[in-house]
């Protein structure tokens, strides 16, 4: 890796990272949350590309490429919701039948160390608990890990025996000549097997050295904002109380050292300055990098600004205007009417400050659809369908006029959807139904509305995560997304996505039930008052004028 700069979206996370690693090394990445460990692993795995610099792998003599296996955080996402045998088959690119035949001799020994030896080929891993799913994914990945193993917090959410087993498996993989790079919080055990530690802080590499040197430079690392594992923290506390200097030792060795070296009774200072100068951590560049880090920490809430600005419009009136204008556009099919519809939509997009990117994306979708529709209607293909080839421009034009309103519908849909907050929606339903529906049913309807609104963004997050996980899974198996298998790929994303949504929904239902929310009227005190302001009237007027013009063209 040579002077690489990595970013997540547009936010720079790490800059000027360089290191080389070779087979037989176990590198542990250490750093706070948000320090860029996952970003670095994504780039090393090839899931994302560096903004600057380069990352390269050199294949060993006799091989053509370096096969990498990447296990991101929450690795249970990598499962594709099929039977255990098919999961293995997809990972190893082997026929499922072969795996079923060799299940006892070959697969069970992979699963047994993780306490999953009882699994049958037809068991469904997606039905197991999250911890078991994680163990299954690790067993599967370690069955044929290739030359490079990249793991992001592999021990999180596992019980103690599985943690120990997993670290032992990684150590074994390294001994057999593999290169392992793992982000790890649980360092107390791993420091004894790892060969090297890279510490990230403030968007930079602040330490690169052996675990021994890492433990010895504890004091200066702590100042740099690198989290220390409990064993190193204890060693540091002992040192600052006048005990032996911090170093890497097992608990029994620490006890022996403490018993051998008498404590300085009145706490002679084993000064931090002296400790800090000992080992050679890379000095942290102060100003520029801390700026970078603070930029990384304060991830701007997506579209929060736009949300609140648009939220300033009266939600009910906005919704009414948009609905009325949609109906009016749907009723008019004249060239002049289409022109009015497009102009009105543009005006609304500007007035309600729709994000330009979304508008352009929707326009692009519409353009592809319109081109296809016009081609289909205008084209006369020739023999054997027709006597000769021809293109009927008039028919195509007619079709184009027919589909123009759909552009308006897409854009108005964008404005109408997703601009209600869940509480606004609940309060609106509650207020609307106040006189008509009995209290109990009204509350259920209001909270149901709130949940639907709340989960539109949540669903999107889960869906994106699932696609990311599937790309990682394909890459681990040495495949790329391909058009010939697009249906299989989509199914492999949708199935686990639905299962995760169901689990998510179950937790939501439990939480609603435990909080007994269905007995509580939705709070409306926080919402902007139902006061009609000038700009609401302007939007209403704009809608009314557009509708009048549309009717007139009719």
């Amino acid at each position, binding site marked *: 890796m040579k002077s690489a700069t990595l970013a997540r979206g547009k936010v720079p996370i790490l800059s000027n990272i360089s290191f080389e690693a070779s087979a037989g090394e176990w590198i542990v990445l250490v750093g706070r949350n948000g320090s860029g460990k996952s970003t670095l692993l994504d780039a090393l795995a090839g899931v994302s590309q560096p903004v600057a610099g380069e990352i390269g792998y050199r294949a060993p003599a006799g091989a053509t490429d370096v096969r990498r296996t990447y296990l991101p955080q929450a690795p249970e996402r990598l499962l594709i919701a099929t039977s255990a045998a098919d999961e293995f088959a997809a990972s190893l690119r082997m026929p499922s039948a072969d795996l079923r035949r060799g299940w006892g001799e070959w697969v069970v020994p992979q699963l047994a160390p993780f306490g999953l030896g009882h699994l049958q080929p037809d068991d469904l891993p997606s039905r197991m608990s999250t911890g078991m799913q994680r163990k299954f994914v690790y067993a599967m990945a370690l069955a044929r890990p290739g030359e490079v193993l990249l793991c992001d917090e592999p021990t999180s959410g596992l019980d103690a025996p599985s943690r120990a087993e997993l670290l032992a498996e990684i150590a074994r993989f390294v001994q057999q000549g593999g290169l392992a790079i793992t982000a790890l919080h649980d360092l107390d055990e791993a420091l004894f097997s790892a060969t090297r530690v890279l510490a990230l802080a403030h968007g930079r590499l602040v330490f690169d050295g052996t675990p021994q040197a890492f433990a010895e430079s504890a004091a200066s690392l702590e100042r740099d904002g690198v989290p220390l594992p409990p064993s190193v923290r*204890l060693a540091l506390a002992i040192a600052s109380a006048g005990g032996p200097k911090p170093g890497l030792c097992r608990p029994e060795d620490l006890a022996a050292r403490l018993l051998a070296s008498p404590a300085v009774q009145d706490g002679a200072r084993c000064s931090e300055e002296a400790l800090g100068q000992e080992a050679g951590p890379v000095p942290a560049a102060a100003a520029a990098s801390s700026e970078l880090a603070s930029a990384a920490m304060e991830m701007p*809430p997506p579209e929060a600004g736009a949300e609140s600005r648009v939220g300033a419009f009266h939600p009910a009136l906005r919704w009414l205007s948009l609905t009325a204008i949609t109906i009016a556009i749907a009723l008019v099919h004249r060239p002049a009417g289409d022109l009015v519809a497009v102009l009105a939509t543009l005006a609304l997009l500007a007035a309600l400050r729709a994000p330009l990117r979304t508008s352009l994306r929707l326009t692009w979708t519409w353009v592809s659809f319109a081109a296809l529709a016009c081609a289909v209607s205008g084209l006369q293909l020739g023999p054997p369908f027709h006597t000769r080839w021809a293109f009927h421009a008039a028919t195509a034009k007619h079709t184009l006029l027919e589909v123009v309103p759909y552009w308006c519908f897409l854009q108005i849909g964008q404005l109408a959807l997703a601009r209600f907050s869940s509480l606004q929606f609940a309060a609106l339903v509650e207020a609307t139904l106040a006189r008509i529906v009995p209290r109990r049913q009204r509350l259920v309807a209001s909270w149901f509305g709130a949940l639907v*609104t709340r989960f539109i963004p949540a669903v999107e997050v889960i869906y994106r995560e699932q696609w990311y996980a599937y790309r990682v899974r394909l890459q681990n198996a040495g495949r790329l997304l391909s058009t010939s298998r697009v249906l299989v790929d989509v199914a492999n994303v949708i199935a686990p996505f639905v299962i995760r949504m169901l689990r998510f929904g179950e937790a939501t239902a439990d939480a609603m039930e435990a909080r007994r929310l269905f007995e509580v009227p939705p709070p409306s005190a926080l919402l902007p008052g139902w006061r009609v302001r000038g700009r609401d009237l302007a939007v209403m007027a704009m809608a009314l004028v557009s509708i009048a013009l549309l009717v007139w063209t009719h």
Partner: protein
Amino acid sequence: MLNSPSNVSTRPKDAAQMRPPALAWRGLSVSPPGASKPVLRDVSGEIARGRIVAFVGPNGAGKTTFFRALVGLARFQGEIDVHGRPWREARWRVQMGFQPPAASFVGQTVEEELAVAIAARAAHLGHPAPDRRALQSEIHEWLQTVGLRVQPDRPVDALSGGEMAKLAVAGALASGADVLLMDETQAELDPDARSAMRAVFRRLAQTGRTVLLVTHDMDDVLAADAIVVVKGGAMREPMSPRAFFYGRDGHAPCDDLGFAAPYLVQAARRIREATGADFAPLTEDEFVEGWRRAVAGEIGDSRARKGADSVEHLV
């Protein structure tokens, strides 16, 4: 053994008359839907107000089932009292944290979520809903209580894992709960966020709230006031973290359950074995103090056993 009633009590004997325990359960049996036999059988016990109690045990032992029964998600037989009142009347004082926390949020932003919780409390107590200003200042207070430093209009989906965990706790408190059940809600957090949550729980306990944790993280167990081992449908007597990790006569429950003792405990046990001193630290400070004043003194000084007494009141 399995069918004998289990008794749990964390109440100091002399305080028994003063305040009813935060939770008390008698003859409790719970069968979750779909289970052929009860997961918890005839257990009894109580937990004093202001305590942090860790529930540990193998998977499927009934820890989660116990929590679900306490918030009304699993049917149970037997009696539960919350702060001395029957469960049916006072169940709103018990709230549970769910995993993933994002799934339990109804509001779209931090302030909306807390507004929902506050509205729930007002509804359950029969109070009028607070107005905008009262609501905003109360939201601000809850954010401070749990140490959540974000803008109130921040969308909940843009929060980090640690921030979501804090928001879930703030929501439970705002809805009037003072008995919090945390079922492995910290498992997915990084060590910094986990220790921040431990500090939050400690502050809550000091202000009279009661926190029950199901956890596999031995650092959480080190920081608890008492530990209840749940195994095979029964609950054992609560014990102190010291008894759990260091045990009596060299036999620690922690090892019996197959949990790896934390590094600090492992090192301390060696020193204990070598010197015979009652050296049983639970924190780094206790370790350093105990070692400095006594254990090292014992060896550095030729007057061998003299320091050993001083450790006992120290750690």
